[in-house]
């Protein structure tokens, strides 16, 4: 049964012109789709092939292309396979549709992406701060946020070769095996 459904689904998806379909193995499918058509695809998958489990939405910042890539991972218990639907939207203004009406857990993933990438989801129930409640800087997972510069500006560092260690070394002690000796 599940084999048949898979074949049937593959045929159907290959026929649709606006998407790129690639079956990686019996349990994984990659689909590249235009942002306008993504909700429709998810609805089709959920309704017709029981892809009822949205396991994650991931986001990638392709700063050179000026685009965000969103990946919706949906799992079906009927066909035992995972569909990853990839779509790209432009970085500016960075607004996309929420799929909360199809998958309730999307609320959390979207809220998280909004916080980390600054991408806004229209129709998502809550776009408040989620984990970084005490963070006032720019969305930190965007590629244009320089984490290293921020760290160097905000924090001090422990000294690597402090005076007390030099004193010990002067007496003949100290670190016996240096990292350079091992590598």
């Amino acid at each position, binding site marked *: 049964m599940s084999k048949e459904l898979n074949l049937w689904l593959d045929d159907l998806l290959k026929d649709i012109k606006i998407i790129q379909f690639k079956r990686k193995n019996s349990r994984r499918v990659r689909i590249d789709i235009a942002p306008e058509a993504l909700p429709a695809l998810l609805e089709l998958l959920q309704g017709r092939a029981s892809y009822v489990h949205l396991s994650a939405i991931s986001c990638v910042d392709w700063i050179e292309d000026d685009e965000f890539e969103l990946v919706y991972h949906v799992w079906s218990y009927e066909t035992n396979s995972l569909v990853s639907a990839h779509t790209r939207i432009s970085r500016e203004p960075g607004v996309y549709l929420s799929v909360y009406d199809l998958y309730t857990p999307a609320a959390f993933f979207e809220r998280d992406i909004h916080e980390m990438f600054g991408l806004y989801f229209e129709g998502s129930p*809550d776009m408040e701060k989620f984990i*970084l*409640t005490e*963070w006032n800087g720019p969305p930190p997972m965007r590629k244009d946020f320089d984490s*290293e510069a921020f*760290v160097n500006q905000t*924090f001090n560092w422990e000294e690597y070769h402090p005076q007390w260690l030099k004193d010990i070394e002067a007496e003949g002690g100290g670190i016996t095996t240096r990292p350079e000796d091992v590598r």
Partner: protein
Amino acid sequence: MNELDKIPVRQEISVAEGNVKRSNPLANVFDELVRFCQSRSMFMLHYCTGCGAIELPPAMTSRFDMERLGIQPMVTPRQADILLITGYVSVKTLKRIILTYEQMPSPKYVIGICSCTVNGGMYWQSYATAKVLKEYLPVDIYIAGCMPRPEAVISGLRDLMGDIKSGRADNWKRYFQNYDHYLGNQQQLFGEDWQTPTDIIAEAEHYGLMTDQTLGEHTALLQKHQQPLEALEFSLGEKREKIQGENPREKNNE
């Protein structure tokens, strides 16, 4: 009343500045006994902040058995003497650590387990973690490693016991003596209006540990921004109703 004052219990404070031994040999014996007892009965609050926490269950339970050293886990800061910080400390967590630390009764000891507490460890580049723990609280012992094995944890705890026994473990006093320094670092990270419910300055007076480093520009800033504490509003029910009202699904169903 006068008689009671002569009992040398509180005199321990004068032991603070390096001169561990007192002139009266009998008092010395007494101090040593107190410190010995202290070092053999410690209650440990483990603040499991990072991955290093995973080494604590074997260190505490039957395999390596910390209890044979007299160290027991404790569930509340009010009844603990050791604060064990096990791993990377995010800025959000650091706030909670400071609140916890300030609630512990003195004498109190802080142990930083893992390289992350020393210098940021492998999260040195992360925007979210605080790097050098001892800038924000006085740390008694660091146990380096990513992550340190239970043997290392236990050997670190034995070092701490040795320090307590010989009277060298008095870093907790530094928090009161240099409060302005620690508060300044905290304010730099958390913003100017950072405040905790514990009145450290009053406690420093109580312990007789006021120095000219206790008060300064940062404590002045604290007093300027300080707001009296109020009980938190308990509004879980209302909030839930509000969110449900905004649920687009329910609207669609109507």
